[in-house]
């Protein structure tokens, strides 16, 4: 018979096996959050589409019509919407995941399961919204007769990068939020601020032009810069592909992900005691 040994400071021995064992819980939690998300709303899942669409329209007016920012040879709507997609995913994942542990405090203090399941399922829920809003992207491309080249096949890979970046930062924020409730106030700020620090309404090529090459590359320390550039590149932007910036973003993403995992694992044992 399999024996489980619980010892002081030795809780993590079965961790990855447990994570696998609790995959159904993970599935059910994601399913619950997706179900609940648009319950008792009139337009339901349309909200997932409406948010990026409306923001895109406002950005088109501000950045393309008023500020006349270059759009790397793409139709302005496509140019902005392509960036808005990963950005919306990233920002909503951050907001949802960072709050997820506290929202499920009751479960955490009453039931054992790998706590990683909770922020992960929060990110998945946002990912579903992301997938729904890509349908609109296809519609936009069709509208502008802007057929993407074979580069579009890279998109899943870049989506994975966006996912890992969101997940990594979410882990940090979720774990920190349990202990320091200050993060509840920091996150909306990060999200608001980030929208203008990331090249959503403008091209990162513009940043390089105006601030020099070094600044342009340092700009890629923001992992969303690499992701957004890559998304635009995959959908036919004429800006030159910048491998250094992408590599930098990938490295930052991986760094955030692994340190996030490590921090989360180190603190999760105490979640039930401090939440």
């Amino acid at each position, binding site marked *: 018979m399999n*024996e489980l040994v619980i010892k002081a400071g030795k809780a993590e021995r079965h961790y990855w096996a447990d994570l696998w064992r609790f995959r159904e819980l993970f599935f059910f939690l994601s399913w619950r959050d997706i179900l609940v998300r648009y319950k008792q709303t009139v337009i339901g899942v349309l909200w997932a589409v409406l948010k990026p669409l409306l923001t895109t329209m406002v950005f088109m007016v501000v950045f393309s019509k008023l500020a006349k920012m270059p759009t790397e040879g793409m139709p302005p709507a496509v140019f902005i919407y392509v960036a808005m997609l990963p950005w919306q995913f990233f920002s909503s994942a951050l907001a949802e995941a960072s709050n997820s542990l506290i929202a499920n405090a009751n479960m955490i203090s009453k039931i*054992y399961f790998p706590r990683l399941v909770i922020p992960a399922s929060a990110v998945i829920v946002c990912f579903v919204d992301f997938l729904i809003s890509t349908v609109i992207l296809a519609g936009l491309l069709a509208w502008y007769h802007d057929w993407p080249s074979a580069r579009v096949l890279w998109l899943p890979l870049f989506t994975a990068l966006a996912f890992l970046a969101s997940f990594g930062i979410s882990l940090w924020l979720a774990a920190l939020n349990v202990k320091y409730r200050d*993060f509840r106030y920091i996150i909306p700020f990060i999200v608001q601020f980030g929208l203008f620090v990331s090249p959503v309404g403008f091209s990162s090529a513009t940043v390089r032009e105006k601030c020099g090459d070094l600044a342009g590359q340092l700009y890629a320390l923001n992992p969303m810069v690499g992701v957004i550039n890559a998304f635009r590149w995959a959908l036919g932007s004429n800006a030159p592909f910048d491998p250094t910036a992408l590599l930098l973003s990938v490295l930052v993403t991986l760094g955030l992900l692994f340190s996030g995992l490590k921090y989360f694992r180190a603190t999760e044992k105490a979640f039930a005691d401090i939440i």
Partner: protein
Amino acid sequence: MDDFAIKVEGLGKKYLLQHQATGRRYTALRDVLTEKAKALFGGQKSATGNRKSVEEFWALKDVSFEIKPGEVMGIIGRNGAGKSTLLKLLSRITEPSTGEIRLRGRVASLLEVGTGFHPELTGRENIFLNGAVLGMHRAEIRSKFDEIVAFAEVEKFLDTPVKRYSSGMYVRLAFAVAAHLEPEILIVDEVLAVGDMEFQKKCLGKMEQVSGKGGRTVLFVSHNMDLISKLCSRAILLHAGEIETAGAVEQVTREYITNSGKLSNKFTAANETRALRWLTLDQDALIQGRLIIKIGYRFSSKVVNPTFGIVIYTEGGSPIFGSNTLYHPPTVRPVDGQEGEATVTFEVLPLWSGRYSISVWLSDGWSPIEHQESAVVFNFVSIHTPLNAPSPKYVGPVHLPANWTINK
């Protein structure tokens, strides 16, 4: 052979209590940052000064026991004795500070019914969700679905969001899911205290079925001694985080019930100036259904007309009866400036089984001098209370002899 389902050795759980006057529950980043800054610029002083206000508290200390497969073990103890902490450690919600636990077999813990229930979801959806939370597989839930619904009696409302359920329906559904769990080791906190009488009986039956015929190892925490002695074969009595007694259930529950002796010793005066020195309850008399209370006194200042009084309260705090030296004057009166012992005896204790408290006061015959609320809290087991009788909370705490005759 070393045959066990649960083996616990030297288990301890330490919490750090922060004594800060701020009264804030969560650590704020601001505080941490200012502390760090102070430590940086102000040398070590502030850091050590802060550390002093953190106190170690052992919620559980050096607990060891072993449970054989198929055994049903009860855990009893007063509030704060460490029962919940023990369950949390066994169900892996928190990590132990010392010692180790060995568990053989699939463990399910029920510290609460309805964990993970979402008010927006329908009954059907919540059954699946809650099942998953409790560690059931989808196929398992599906195969028991009809049984769960029938047990909870919510067939008509399966597709209604549970936020529209009555609280009774909600609890029944939650318990029904939990009751159909089939682990090898089951850890249960007082979750049976749900629903109406009818449903409680049903839950009890289910519990008996699970523990008796199911052959499962069960760890069961409750305040209800009747339940514990009915369901369990062995029991552990926890006191202040340590095992006080372990053994056959009759012995341990008896110890727990008469253990109020410990509590009565608990009342000793806080300082030397108090006139009411101590108060004890005669345990042997209590078992026989009599109430004998001894009050130790010492008058250090002048008391004109020393008068003692006691009042018995229900657990909820309503006075039931009392006596004092004005109502029932003693033959010898206490004299000022002396110490001594005042004893009050009730030859009959007309109460149903339950928990009661005694308060004691001293007056000068006119206005109170000293007063001690809940000086003693005791459990009383009336020989007249049958098992499964309605709780005294429905009929009142007082037991009067009565006769029923039936004419056919």
